[in-house]
Protein backbone atom coordinates (compact mmCIF):
# COMPACT_ATOMS: atom_id res chain seq x y z
CA UNK A 1 0.00 0.00 0.00
CA UNK A 2 1.40 3.33 -1.01
CA UNK A 3 1.56 6.23 1.39
CA UNK A 4 0.61 8.67 -1.36
CA UNK A 5 -2.90 9.45 -2.57
CA UNK A 6 -1.47 10.26 -5.98
CA UNK A 7 1.91 9.41 -7.39
CA UNK A 8 2.89 10.17 -10.97
CA UNK A 9 6.12 9.66 -12.87
CA UNK A 10 6.74 11.46 -16.13
CA UNK A 11 3.00 11.75 -16.76
CA UNK A 12 2.49 13.14 -20.24
CA UNK A 13 -0.29 13.82 -22.69
CA UNK A 14 0.06 15.09 -26.21
CA UNK A 15 -2.73 16.32 -28.46
CA UNK A 16 -1.24 15.94 -31.92
CA UNK A 17 2.00 17.89 -31.77
CA UNK A 18 0.96 19.92 -28.71
CA UNK A 19 2.43 18.54 -25.51
CA UNK A 20 -0.23 19.68 -23.04
CA UNK A 21 1.33 17.77 -20.15
CA UNK A 22 5.00 17.10 -20.59
CA UNK A 23 6.42 14.86 -17.88
CA UNK A 24 4.71 15.68 -14.58
CA UNK A 25 6.00 14.09 -11.36
CA UNK A 26 3.68 14.50 -8.39
CA UNK A 27 3.58 12.99 -4.92
CA UNK A 28 0.35 13.94 -3.20
CA UNK A 29 0.12 12.80 0.43
CA UNK A 30 -3.08 11.25 1.84
CA UNK A 31 -5.25 13.79 3.67
CA UNK A 32 -5.34 17.55 3.31
CA UNK A 33 -5.41 19.73 0.23
CA UNK A 34 -2.85 19.64 -2.54
CA UNK A 35 -2.84 22.68 -4.79
CA UNK A 36 -1.85 22.72 -8.45
CA UNK A 37 -1.17 26.29 -9.41
CA UNK A 38 -0.68 27.60 -12.90
CA UNK A 39 -1.97 29.97 -15.57
CA UNK A 40 -4.48 29.09 -18.29
CA UNK A 41 -3.10 26.48 -20.64
CA UNK A 42 -0.47 25.23 -18.19
CA UNK A 43 -1.88 21.69 -18.33
CA UNK A 44 -3.77 21.65 -15.03
CA UNK A 45 -7.07 20.39 -16.39
CA UNK A 46 -5.43 17.84 -18.66
CA UNK A 47 -3.48 16.48 -15.68
CA UNK A 48 -6.63 16.20 -13.55
CA UNK A 49 -8.55 14.49 -16.34
CA UNK A 50 -5.84 11.87 -16.63
CA UNK A 51 -5.83 11.30 -12.87
CA UNK A 52 -9.63 10.94 -12.87
CA UNK A 53 -9.37 8.31 -15.68
CA UNK A 54 -11.14 10.52 -18.19
CA UNK A 55 -8.15 10.84 -20.45
CA UNK A 56 -5.48 8.27 -21.23
CA UNK A 57 -1.91 9.40 -20.71
CA UNK A 58 0.39 9.22 -23.74
CA UNK A 59 3.41 8.75 -21.48
CA UNK A 60 4.48 8.05 -17.91
CA UNK A 61 2.49 6.46 -15.11
CA UNK A 62 -0.03 7.60 -12.54
CA UNK A 63 -1.12 5.69 -9.46
CA UNK A 64 -4.19 6.97 -7.61
CA UNK A 65 -5.02 5.54 -4.17
CA UNK A 66 -2.75 2.61 -4.97
CA UNK A 67 -4.31 1.81 -8.36
CA UNK A 68 -2.99 2.46 -11.82
CA UNK A 69 -5.24 4.93 -13.69
CA UNK A 70 -5.07 2.94 -16.93
CA UNK A 71 -4.98 -0.71 -15.83
CA UNK A 72 -7.36 -0.32 -12.88
CA UNK A 73 -9.47 2.60 -14.07
CA UNK A 74 -12.74 1.15 -12.73
CA UNK A 75 -11.30 0.75 -9.22
CA UNK A 76 -10.02 4.31 -9.28
CA UNK A 77 -13.41 5.62 -10.44
CA UNK A 78 -15.15 3.96 -7.49
CA UNK A 79 -12.99 5.95 -5.07
CA UNK A 80 -12.66 9.41 -6.60
CA UNK A 81 -14.98 12.21 -7.60
CA UNK A 82 -14.43 15.07 -9.98
CA UNK A 83 -15.90 18.54 -10.15
CA UNK A 84 -14.88 21.25 -12.52
CA UNK A 85 -15.34 23.20 -15.68
CA UNK A 86 -15.24 19.98 -17.67
CA UNK A 87 -17.27 17.68 -15.45
CA UNK A 88 -20.65 19.18 -14.94
CA UNK A 89 -24.22 18.40 -14.01
CA UNK A 90 -27.10 18.39 -16.48
CA UNK A 91 -28.19 22.02 -16.81
CA UNK A 92 -31.65 21.13 -18.06
CA UNK A 93 -32.51 19.16 -14.92
CA UNK A 94 -33.33 20.62 -11.51
CA UNK A 95 -30.97 20.43 -8.55
CA UNK A 96 -33.00 17.63 -6.99
CA UNK A 97 -33.24 15.65 -10.22
CA UNK A 98 -29.48 15.85 -10.76
CA UNK A 99 -28.72 14.63 -7.26
CA UNK A 100 -31.34 11.88 -7.36
CA UNK A 101 -29.92 10.71 -10.69
CA UNK A 102 -26.40 10.60 -9.27
CA UNK A 103 -27.70 8.82 -6.16
CA UNK A 104 -29.35 6.18 -8.35
CA UNK A 105 -26.15 5.75 -10.36
CA UNK A 106 -24.18 5.27 -7.15
CA UNK A 107 -26.60 2.45 -6.30
CA UNK A 108 -29.12 4.03 -3.91
CA UNK A 109 -32.77 3.03 -4.10
CA UNK A 110 -35.17 5.74 -5.30
CA UNK A 111 -36.21 6.51 -1.73
CA UNK A 112 -32.63 6.64 -0.46
CA UNK A 113 -31.58 8.80 -3.43
CA UNK A 114 -34.37 11.29 -2.71
CA UNK A 115 -33.47 11.41 0.96
CA UNK A 116 -29.77 11.89 0.24
CA UNK A 117 -30.57 14.61 -2.31
CA UNK A 118 -32.66 16.55 0.22
CA UNK A 119 -29.94 16.19 2.83
CA UNK A 120 -27.24 17.52 0.50
CA UNK A 121 -29.36 20.40 -0.79
CA UNK A 122 -30.01 21.42 2.81
CA UNK A 123 -26.32 21.20 3.74
CA UNK A 124 -25.34 23.33 0.73
CA UNK A 125 -28.07 25.95 1.32
CA UNK A 126 -29.83 25.02 -1.90
CA UNK A 127 -33.17 23.79 -0.57
CA UNK A 128 -34.97 26.80 -2.03
CA UNK A 129 -33.45 26.20 -5.45
CA UNK A 130 -34.07 22.44 -5.37
CA UNK A 131 -36.87 22.56 -7.94
CA UNK A 132 -35.17 24.99 -10.31
CA UNK A 133 -33.21 24.00 -13.41
CA UNK A 134 -29.48 24.12 -12.77
CA UNK A 135 -28.94 26.47 -15.73
CA UNK A 136 -30.86 29.12 -13.79
CA UNK A 137 -28.49 28.95 -10.79
CA UNK A 138 -26.05 31.75 -10.00
CA UNK A 139 -22.32 31.06 -10.30
CA UNK A 140 -21.91 30.32 -6.61
CA UNK A 141 -24.96 28.06 -6.42
CA UNK A 142 -23.78 26.27 -9.52
CA UNK A 143 -20.41 25.52 -7.96
CA UNK A 144 -22.09 24.30 -4.76
CA UNK A 145 -24.45 21.93 -6.54
CA UNK A 146 -21.51 20.63 -8.60
CA UNK A 147 -19.63 19.84 -5.40
CA UNK A 148 -22.75 18.38 -3.75
CA UNK A 149 -23.04 16.03 -6.74
CA UNK A 150 -19.53 14.79 -6.06
CA UNK A 151 -20.19 13.82 -2.47
CA UNK A 152 -23.42 11.87 -2.89
CA UNK A 153 -21.15 9.09 -1.75
CA UNK A 154 -18.10 10.43 0.09
CA UNK A 155 -15.06 10.01 -2.17
CA UNK A 156 -11.62 9.17 -0.80
CA UNK A 157 -10.10 11.62 -3.21
CA UNK A 158 -11.77 14.61 -4.79
CA UNK A 159 -10.56 16.59 -7.79
CA UNK A 160 -11.65 20.21 -7.85
CA UNK A 161 -10.80 21.95 -11.09
CA UNK A 162 -10.67 25.72 -10.55
CA UNK A 163 -13.59 25.68 -8.12
CA UNK A 164 -13.63 29.42 -7.50
CA UNK A 165 -12.78 30.90 -10.90
CA UNK A 166 -15.32 33.62 -11.65
CA UNK A 167 -16.97 33.58 -8.22
CA UNK A 168 -17.65 36.63 -6.06
CA UNK A 169 -15.81 36.81 -2.71
CA UNK A 170 -18.75 35.51 -0.67
CA UNK A 171 -19.29 32.48 -2.88
CA UNK A 172 -15.55 31.89 -2.94
CA UNK A 173 -15.48 31.82 0.87
CA UNK A 174 -18.32 29.31 0.87
CA UNK A 175 -16.43 27.04 -1.50
CA UNK A 176 -13.34 27.35 0.68
CA UNK A 177 -15.40 26.35 3.73
CA UNK A 178 -16.74 23.35 1.86
CA UNK A 179 -13.23 22.28 0.91
CA UNK A 180 -12.14 22.53 4.54
CA UNK A 181 -15.15 20.46 5.58
CA UNK A 182 -14.25 17.80 3.03
CA UNK A 183 -10.74 17.61 4.41
CA UNK A 184 -11.89 17.39 8.00
CA UNK A 185 -14.15 14.48 7.00
CA UNK A 186 -11.08 12.66 5.72
CA UNK A 187 -11.21 13.26 1.96
CA UNK A 188 -8.00 14.16 0.18
CA UNK A 189 -8.54 17.12 -2.14
CA UNK A 190 -6.54 17.94 -5.24
CA UNK A 191 -7.36 21.46 -6.30
CA UNK A 192 -6.26 23.43 -9.31
CA UNK A 193 -6.25 27.17 -9.22
CA UNK A 194 -4.91 30.25 -10.92
CA UNK A 195 -4.78 32.16 -7.67
CA UNK A 196 -1.80 32.05 -5.35
CA UNK A 197 -4.01 33.44 -2.61
CA UNK A 198 -6.35 30.46 -2.90
CA UNK A 199 -3.55 27.91 -2.88
CA UNK A 200 -2.09 29.74 0.10
CA UNK A 201 -5.41 29.67 2.01
CA UNK A 202 -6.24 26.03 1.40
CA UNK A 203 -3.34 23.93 0.28
CA UNK A 204 -0.83 22.15 2.47
CA UNK A 205 1.46 21.68 -0.47
CA UNK A 206 1.52 23.35 -3.85
CA UNK A 207 2.90 22.33 -7.23
CA UNK A 208 3.39 25.17 -9.68
CA UNK A 209 3.00 24.05 -13.26
CA UNK A 210 3.74 25.87 -16.46
CA UNK A 211 3.71 24.63 -20.05
CA UNK A 212 3.01 21.08 -18.94
CA UNK A 213 5.83 20.80 -16.43
CA UNK A 214 6.12 21.15 -12.66
CA UNK A 215 8.44 24.10 -12.14
CA UNK A 216 8.29 24.28 -8.35
CA UNK A 217 6.83 22.24 -5.50
CA UNK A 218 6.59 22.77 -1.78
CA UNK A 219 4.57 24.33 1.00
CA UNK A 220 3.31 27.83 0.37
CA UNK A 221 5.96 29.13 2.77
CA UNK A 222 8.72 27.44 0.77
CA UNK A 223 7.40 28.81 -2.49
CA UNK A 224 7.14 32.31 -1.15
CA UNK A 225 10.61 32.18 0.26
CA UNK A 226 11.86 31.38 -3.23
CA UNK A 227 10.02 34.41 -4.57
CA UNK A 228 10.78 36.88 -1.81
CA UNK A 229 8.36 37.29 1.01
CA UNK A 230 6.36 40.07 -0.47
CA UNK A 231 5.86 42.62 -3.16
CA UNK A 232 6.03 46.33 -2.59
CA UNK A 233 3.82 48.47 -4.79
CA UNK A 234 4.41 52.22 -4.84
CA UNK A 235 2.84 54.99 -6.88
CA UNK A 236 4.68 58.26 -6.98
CA UNK A 237 2.77 61.53 -7.27
CA UNK A 238 5.01 62.86 -10.04
CA UNK A 239 5.89 60.31 -12.74
CA UNK A 240 8.99 62.37 -13.60
CA UNK A 241 10.47 61.36 -10.25
CA UNK A 242 9.92 57.63 -10.77
CA UNK A 243 13.48 56.88 -11.86
CA UNK A 244 14.90 58.60 -8.83
CA UNK A 245 12.45 56.78 -6.57
CA UNK A 246 13.49 53.44 -8.10
CA UNK A 247 17.15 54.23 -7.48
CA UNK A 248 16.44 55.04 -3.84
CA UNK A 249 14.28 51.93 -3.28
CA UNK A 250 16.79 49.64 -4.98
CA UNK A 251 19.62 50.85 -2.84
CA UNK A 252 17.54 50.76 0.36
CA UNK A 253 16.07 47.29 -0.22
CA UNK A 254 18.84 45.74 -2.31
CA UNK A 255 16.49 44.44 -4.95
CA UNK A 256 15.46 45.16 -8.48
CA UNK A 257 12.33 47.14 -9.24
CA UNK A 258 9.90 46.62 -12.10
CA UNK A 259 8.48 49.56 -14.01
CA UNK A 260 4.76 49.06 -14.44
CA UNK A 261 3.03 50.21 -17.61
CA UNK A 262 1.52 52.96 -15.47
CA UNK A 263 4.26 55.67 -15.55
CA UNK A 264 3.83 56.41 -11.84
CA UNK A 265 3.94 52.87 -10.51
CA UNK A 266 6.81 50.78 -9.17
CA UNK A 267 6.68 47.13 -8.15
CA UNK A 268 9.48 45.49 -6.28
CA UNK A 269 10.06 42.09 -4.77
CA UNK A 270 11.17 42.40 -1.18
CA UNK A 271 13.12 39.74 0.69
CA UNK A 272 12.90 41.46 4.06
CA UNK A 273 9.67 43.40 4.66
CA UNK A 274 11.16 44.95 7.82
CA UNK A 275 13.22 47.32 5.68
CA UNK A 276 10.21 48.74 3.86
CA UNK A 277 9.24 51.55 6.31
CA UNK A 278 12.78 52.92 6.24
CA UNK A 279 12.87 52.80 2.46
CA UNK A 280 9.60 54.71 2.23
CA UNK A 281 10.97 57.26 4.70
CA UNK A 282 13.93 57.85 2.38
CA UNK A 283 11.58 58.68 -0.48
CA UNK A 284 9.92 61.27 1.74
CA UNK A 285 13.27 62.70 2.83
CA UNK A 286 14.17 63.22 -0.83
CA UNK A 287 10.94 65.07 -1.42
CA UNK A 288 9.26 62.34 -3.48
CA UNK A 289 5.59 62.24 -2.62
CA UNK A 290 3.78 58.90 -2.92
CA UNK A 291 0.06 58.59 -3.58
CA UNK A 292 -0.14 54.92 -2.72
CA UNK A 293 2.00 52.15 -1.28
CA UNK A 294 1.29 48.61 -0.25
CA UNK A 295 3.19 45.53 0.80
CA UNK A 296 1.44 42.40 -0.27
CA UNK A 297 1.88 38.77 -1.13
CA UNK A 298 3.57 38.11 -4.40
CA UNK A 299 1.00 37.62 -7.13
CA UNK A 300 0.94 34.60 -9.38
CA UNK A 301 2.61 36.74 -11.99
CA UNK A 302 5.43 37.54 -9.58
CA UNK A 303 5.82 33.89 -8.63
CA UNK A 304 6.14 33.05 -12.29
CA UNK A 305 8.51 35.90 -12.89
CA UNK A 306 10.69 34.60 -10.08
CA UNK A 307 10.49 30.94 -11.12
CA UNK A 308 10.68 31.25 -14.88
CA UNK A 309 11.93 34.74 -15.52
CA UNK A 310 8.80 35.31 -17.62
CA UNK A 311 5.47 36.94 -17.04
CA UNK A 312 2.40 34.71 -17.13
CA UNK A 313 1.78 34.00 -20.77
CA UNK A 314 -1.83 33.90 -21.73
CA UNK A 315 -1.99 30.90 -24.02
CA UNK A 316 -5.23 29.33 -25.02
CA UNK A 317 -6.40 26.48 -22.82
CA UNK A 318 -5.58 23.27 -24.63
CA UNK A 319 -8.83 21.66 -25.73
CA UNK A 320 -9.40 18.35 -24.07
Amino acid at each position, binding site marked *: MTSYAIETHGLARAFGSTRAVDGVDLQVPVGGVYGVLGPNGAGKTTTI*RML*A*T*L*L*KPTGGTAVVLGHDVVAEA*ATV*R*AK*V*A*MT*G*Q*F*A*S*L*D*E*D*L*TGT*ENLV*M*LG*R*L*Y*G*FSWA*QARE*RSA*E*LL*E*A*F*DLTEAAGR*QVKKYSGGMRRRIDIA*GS*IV*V*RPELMFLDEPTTGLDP*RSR*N*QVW*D*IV*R*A*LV*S*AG*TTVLLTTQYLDEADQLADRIAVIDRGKVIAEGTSGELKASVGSGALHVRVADPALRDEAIRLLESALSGEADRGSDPASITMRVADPAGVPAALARLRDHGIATTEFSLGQPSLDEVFLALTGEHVHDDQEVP*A
Partner: protein
Amino acid sequence: MTIDTNGGMDTKVAAALGSGPRPQPASAVSSSLTFGWRALLKIKHVPEQLFDVTMFPIMFTLMFTFIFGGAIAGSPKEYLPYLAPGILVQTVVMITMYTAMTINNDIEKGVFDRIRSLPVWRPSLLVGSLLGDTLRYTMASSIIIVVTLLLGYRPAGGVSGVVAAIALLLVFCFSVSWIWTLLGFKLRTPNAVMGVSMMVLFPLTFLSNVFVAPSTMPDVLESVVKVNPVTVLVDAARSLMDGTPDGGAIVTVLIMSGVLVAVFGPLTMRVFANKT
Protein backbone atom coordinates in the same frame (compact mmCIF):
# COMPACT_ATOMS: atom_id res chain seq x y z
CA MET B 1 -14.35 38.56 9.95
CA THR B 2 -17.45 39.17 12.00
CA ILE B 3 -20.05 38.73 9.29
CA ASP B 4 -21.32 35.20 9.05
CA THR B 5 -21.08 34.60 5.34
CA ASN B 6 -22.04 31.00 5.18
CA GLY B 7 -24.61 30.20 7.84
CA GLY B 8 -22.41 27.47 9.26
CA MET B 9 -22.19 25.77 5.90
CA ASP B 10 -18.94 24.03 6.75
CA THR B 11 -20.43 22.22 9.75
CA LYS B 12 -23.56 21.28 7.80
CA VAL B 13 -21.46 19.99 4.92
CA ALA B 14 -19.25 18.04 7.28
CA ALA B 15 -22.35 16.45 8.81
CA ALA B 16 -23.75 15.56 5.38
CA LEU B 17 -20.45 13.99 4.42
CA GLY B 18 -20.34 11.73 7.40
CA SER B 19 -23.85 10.36 7.15
CA GLY B 20 -25.49 7.98 4.79
CA PRO B 21 -24.89 4.37 3.79
CA ARG B 22 -22.39 3.38 1.14
CA PRO B 23 -24.41 1.45 -1.43
CA GLN B 24 -23.33 -1.21 -3.88
CA PRO B 25 -22.76 0.26 -7.36
CA ALA B 26 -25.88 0.29 -9.56
CA SER B 27 -26.48 -2.65 -11.89
CA ALA B 28 -26.35 -2.19 -15.65
CA VAL B 29 -30.14 -2.38 -15.91
CA SER B 30 -30.70 0.08 -13.10
CA SER B 31 -28.20 2.63 -14.47
CA SER B 32 -29.67 2.30 -17.99
CA LEU B 33 -33.16 2.94 -16.60
CA THR B 34 -31.84 5.91 -14.63
CA PHE B 35 -30.47 7.43 -17.84
CA GLY B 36 -33.79 6.67 -19.52
CA TRP B 37 -35.48 8.60 -16.70
CA ARG B 38 -33.09 11.47 -17.38
CA ALA B 39 -34.13 11.46 -21.06
CA LEU B 40 -37.78 11.72 -19.99
CA LEU B 41 -36.98 14.59 -17.62
CA LYS B 42 -35.23 16.41 -20.43
CA ILE B 43 -38.34 16.08 -22.60
CA LYS B 44 -40.36 17.49 -19.70
CA HIS B 45 -38.02 20.43 -19.05
CA VAL B 46 -37.17 21.25 -22.66
CA PRO B 47 -40.45 20.68 -24.48
CA GLU B 48 -39.07 22.68 -27.43
CA GLN B 49 -37.14 19.59 -28.44
CA LEU B 50 -40.49 17.94 -29.14
CA PHE B 51 -41.33 20.66 -31.63
CA ASP B 52 -39.68 18.80 -34.48
CA VAL B 53 -41.39 15.65 -33.37
CA THR B 54 -44.87 17.16 -33.25
CA MET B 55 -45.10 20.18 -35.55
CA PHE B 56 -42.99 19.00 -38.49
CA PRO B 57 -44.90 15.76 -39.02
CA ILE B 58 -48.21 17.61 -38.95
CA MET B 59 -46.94 20.33 -41.28
CA PHE B 60 -45.38 17.87 -43.72
CA THR B 61 -48.40 15.63 -43.84
CA LEU B 62 -50.78 18.51 -44.49
CA MET B 63 -48.49 20.16 -47.03
CA PHE B 64 -47.78 17.09 -49.11
CA THR B 65 -51.31 15.77 -48.97
CA PHE B 66 -52.90 18.95 -50.22
CA ILE B 67 -50.17 20.36 -52.47
CA PHE B 68 -49.22 17.17 -54.31
CA GLY B 69 -52.19 14.95 -53.65
CA GLY B 70 -54.24 16.22 -56.59
CA ALA B 71 -51.37 16.15 -59.05
CA ILE B 72 -50.00 12.75 -58.06
CA ALA B 73 -53.06 10.69 -57.26
CA GLY B 74 -56.01 12.64 -58.59
CA SER B 75 -57.13 13.88 -55.18
CA PRO B 76 -55.62 14.39 -51.72
CA LYS B 77 -57.71 11.58 -50.31
CA GLU B 78 -56.59 9.09 -52.94
CA TYR B 79 -52.95 10.09 -52.32
CA LEU B 80 -53.12 9.32 -48.58
CA PRO B 81 -52.76 5.52 -48.72
CA TYR B 82 -49.53 6.03 -50.67
CA LEU B 83 -48.25 9.00 -48.70
CA ALA B 84 -49.12 8.01 -45.11
CA PRO B 85 -46.61 5.13 -44.74
CA GLY B 86 -43.99 7.17 -46.60
CA ILE B 87 -44.29 10.28 -44.50
CA LEU B 88 -44.34 8.14 -41.37
CA VAL B 89 -40.99 6.66 -42.34
CA GLN B 90 -39.54 9.97 -43.44
CA THR B 91 -40.45 11.81 -40.25
CA VAL B 92 -39.15 9.22 -37.86
CA VAL B 93 -35.94 8.57 -39.82
CA MET B 94 -35.33 12.33 -39.83
CA ILE B 95 -35.57 12.66 -36.06
CA THR B 96 -33.07 9.86 -35.44
CA MET B 97 -30.38 12.54 -35.76
CA TYR B 98 -31.35 13.93 -32.36
CA THR B 99 -29.50 11.00 -30.87
CA ALA B 100 -26.30 12.55 -32.15
CA MET B 101 -27.31 16.01 -30.95
CA THR B 102 -27.99 14.77 -27.42
CA ILE B 103 -24.68 12.98 -27.12
CA ASN B 104 -22.73 15.84 -28.62
CA ASN B 105 -24.37 18.27 -26.21
CA ASP B 106 -23.50 16.08 -23.25
CA ILE B 107 -19.88 16.02 -24.32
CA GLU B 108 -19.71 19.75 -24.92
CA LYS B 109 -21.38 20.65 -21.61
CA GLY B 110 -19.16 18.33 -19.56
CA VAL B 111 -22.03 16.08 -18.47
CA PHE B 112 -20.39 13.23 -20.32
CA ASP B 113 -17.16 13.55 -18.31
CA ARG B 114 -19.08 13.73 -15.07
CA ILE B 115 -20.89 10.53 -15.91
CA ARG B 116 -17.73 8.82 -17.10
CA SER B 117 -16.08 9.55 -13.77
CA LEU B 118 -18.79 7.50 -12.02
CA PRO B 119 -18.41 3.80 -11.26
CA VAL B 120 -21.26 2.72 -13.58
CA TRP B 121 -21.47 0.45 -16.59
CA ARG B 122 -20.53 3.12 -19.13
CA PRO B 123 -22.68 2.04 -22.10
CA SER B 124 -25.77 2.52 -19.92
CA LEU B 125 -25.63 6.20 -20.86
CA LEU B 126 -26.16 5.23 -24.50
CA VAL B 127 -28.78 2.62 -23.73
CA GLY B 128 -30.67 5.10 -21.56
CA SER B 129 -30.69 7.81 -24.20
CA LEU B 130 -31.78 5.29 -26.85
CA LEU B 131 -34.73 4.42 -24.60
CA GLY B 132 -35.66 8.11 -24.54
CA ASP B 133 -35.26 8.31 -28.33
CA THR B 134 -37.56 5.35 -28.81
CA LEU B 135 -40.23 7.20 -26.89
CA ARG B 136 -39.74 10.16 -29.20
CA TYR B 137 -40.09 7.96 -32.30
CA THR B 138 -43.27 6.43 -30.91
CA MET B 139 -44.76 9.85 -30.25
CA ALA B 140 -43.96 11.08 -33.75
CA SER B 141 -45.43 7.90 -35.29
CA SER B 142 -48.64 8.27 -33.29
CA ILE B 143 -49.04 11.87 -34.38
CA ILE B 144 -48.67 11.00 -38.07
CA ILE B 145 -51.18 8.19 -37.80
CA VAL B 146 -53.71 10.39 -35.99
CA VAL B 147 -53.31 13.24 -38.49
CA THR B 148 -53.67 10.97 -41.51
CA LEU B 149 -56.68 9.27 -39.94
CA LEU B 150 -58.27 12.69 -39.46
CA LEU B 151 -57.62 13.49 -43.11
CA GLY B 152 -59.55 10.40 -44.09
CA TYR B 153 -56.87 7.74 -44.35
CA ARG B 154 -58.28 4.24 -43.69
CA PRO B 155 -55.40 1.72 -43.70
CA ALA B 156 -56.45 -1.62 -45.20
CA GLY B 157 -54.07 -3.44 -42.87
CA GLY B 158 -56.10 -2.30 -39.86
CA VAL B 159 -54.73 -1.71 -36.37
CA SER B 160 -52.42 -4.72 -36.49
CA GLY B 161 -50.93 -3.66 -39.82
CA VAL B 162 -50.24 -0.13 -38.56
CA VAL B 163 -48.76 -1.38 -35.29
CA ALA B 164 -46.55 -3.85 -37.17
CA ALA B 165 -45.34 -1.09 -39.52
CA ILE B 166 -44.49 1.17 -36.59
CA ALA B 167 -42.72 -1.66 -34.79
CA LEU B 168 -40.61 -2.36 -37.88
CA LEU B 169 -39.85 1.34 -38.20
CA LEU B 170 -38.73 1.51 -34.54
CA VAL B 171 -36.40 -1.45 -35.05
CA PHE B 172 -34.84 0.23 -38.07
CA CYS B 173 -34.53 3.63 -36.36
CA PHE B 174 -33.01 2.10 -33.23
CA SER B 175 -30.36 0.56 -35.49
CA VAL B 176 -29.78 3.79 -37.40
CA SER B 177 -29.32 5.56 -34.04
CA TRP B 178 -26.01 3.76 -33.61
CA ILE B 179 -24.68 5.63 -36.65
CA TRP B 180 -25.69 8.87 -34.96
CA THR B 181 -24.12 7.98 -31.63
CA LEU B 182 -20.87 7.41 -33.48
CA LEU B 183 -21.21 10.76 -35.27
CA GLY B 184 -22.14 12.41 -31.96
CA PHE B 185 -18.80 11.30 -30.57
CA LYS B 186 -16.78 12.13 -33.63
CA LEU B 187 -18.04 15.59 -34.53
CA ARG B 188 -16.95 18.61 -32.56
CA THR B 189 -20.06 20.76 -32.17
CA PRO B 190 -23.84 20.31 -32.23
CA ASN B 191 -23.89 22.58 -35.29
CA ALA B 192 -21.58 20.26 -37.17
CA VAL B 193 -23.85 17.36 -36.22
CA MET B 194 -26.84 19.26 -37.58
CA GLY B 195 -25.04 20.04 -40.84
CA VAL B 196 -23.77 16.54 -41.50
CA SER B 197 -27.03 14.86 -40.61
CA MET B 198 -29.05 17.13 -42.90
CA MET B 199 -26.63 16.33 -45.71
CA VAL B 200 -27.23 12.64 -45.15
CA LEU B 201 -30.92 12.65 -44.30
CA PHE B 202 -32.32 14.89 -47.01
CA PRO B 203 -31.02 12.85 -49.95
CA LEU B 204 -31.75 9.63 -48.11
CA THR B 205 -35.41 10.42 -47.49
CA PHE B 206 -36.20 12.40 -50.67
CA LEU B 207 -34.36 10.14 -53.14
CA SER B 208 -36.79 7.41 -52.22
CA ASN B 209 -40.33 6.26 -52.89
CA VAL B 210 -41.72 8.29 -49.96
CA PHE B 211 -43.68 10.71 -52.17
CA VAL B 212 -43.90 9.24 -55.66
CA ALA B 213 -43.48 5.87 -57.34
CA PRO B 214 -39.90 5.37 -58.60
CA SER B 215 -41.25 4.22 -61.97
CA THR B 216 -42.13 7.84 -62.77
CA MET B 217 -38.50 8.92 -62.39
CA PRO B 218 -35.65 9.03 -64.96
CA ASP B 219 -33.86 5.67 -65.26
CA VAL B 220 -30.65 6.70 -63.47
CA LEU B 221 -32.54 8.17 -60.55
CA GLU B 222 -34.86 5.20 -60.41
CA SER B 223 -31.94 2.80 -59.98
CA VAL B 224 -30.54 4.98 -57.19
CA VAL B 225 -33.90 5.15 -55.46
CA LYS B 226 -34.37 1.42 -55.66
CA VAL B 227 -31.22 0.64 -53.69
CA ASN B 228 -31.95 3.27 -51.04
CA PRO B 229 -32.61 1.50 -47.70
CA VAL B 230 -35.40 3.99 -46.99
CA THR B 231 -37.19 2.79 -50.14
CA VAL B 232 -37.11 -0.79 -48.88
CA LEU B 233 -38.34 0.34 -45.48
CA VAL B 234 -41.20 2.32 -47.05
CA ASP B 235 -42.12 -0.68 -49.21
CA ALA B 236 -42.26 -2.86 -46.12
CA ALA B 237 -44.28 -0.32 -44.10
CA ARG B 238 -46.68 0.26 -46.99
CA SER B 239 -47.25 -3.46 -47.46
CA LEU B 240 -48.02 -3.88 -43.77
CA MET B 241 -50.38 -0.92 -43.62
CA ASP B 242 -52.09 -2.01 -46.84
CA GLY B 243 -52.69 -5.45 -45.34
CA THR B 244 -50.53 -7.20 -47.98
CA PRO B 245 -47.28 -7.90 -46.08
CA ASP B 246 -44.25 -8.04 -48.40
CA GLY B 247 -42.11 -10.70 -46.69
CA GLY B 248 -39.03 -9.95 -48.80
CA ALA B 249 -38.98 -6.25 -47.93
CA ILE B 250 -39.63 -6.92 -44.23
CA VAL B 251 -36.81 -9.45 -43.99
CA THR B 252 -34.48 -7.10 -45.88
CA VAL B 253 -35.24 -4.32 -43.40
CA LEU B 254 -34.54 -6.63 -40.47
CA ILE B 255 -31.27 -7.77 -42.05
CA MET B 256 -30.23 -4.16 -42.71
CA SER B 257 -31.02 -3.31 -39.08
CA GLY B 258 -28.98 -6.25 -37.86
CA VAL B 259 -26.03 -5.23 -40.04
CA LEU B 260 -26.21 -1.62 -38.83
CA VAL B 261 -26.11 -2.68 -35.18
CA ALA B 262 -23.40 -5.26 -35.83
CA VAL B 263 -21.18 -2.68 -37.53
CA PHE B 264 -21.91 0.55 -35.69
CA GLY B 265 -22.61 -0.91 -32.23
CA PRO B 266 -19.07 -2.19 -31.63
CA LEU B 267 -17.57 0.81 -33.44
CA THR B 268 -19.47 3.22 -31.20
CA MET B 269 -18.52 1.27 -28.10
CA ARG B 270 -14.87 1.38 -29.09
CA VAL B 271 -14.91 5.12 -29.68
CA PHE B 272 -16.87 5.52 -26.45
CA ALA B 273 -14.35 3.53 -24.40
CA ASN B 274 -11.36 5.30 -25.93
CA LYS B 275 -12.92 8.73 -26.06
CA THR B 276 -9.92 11.05 -25.61
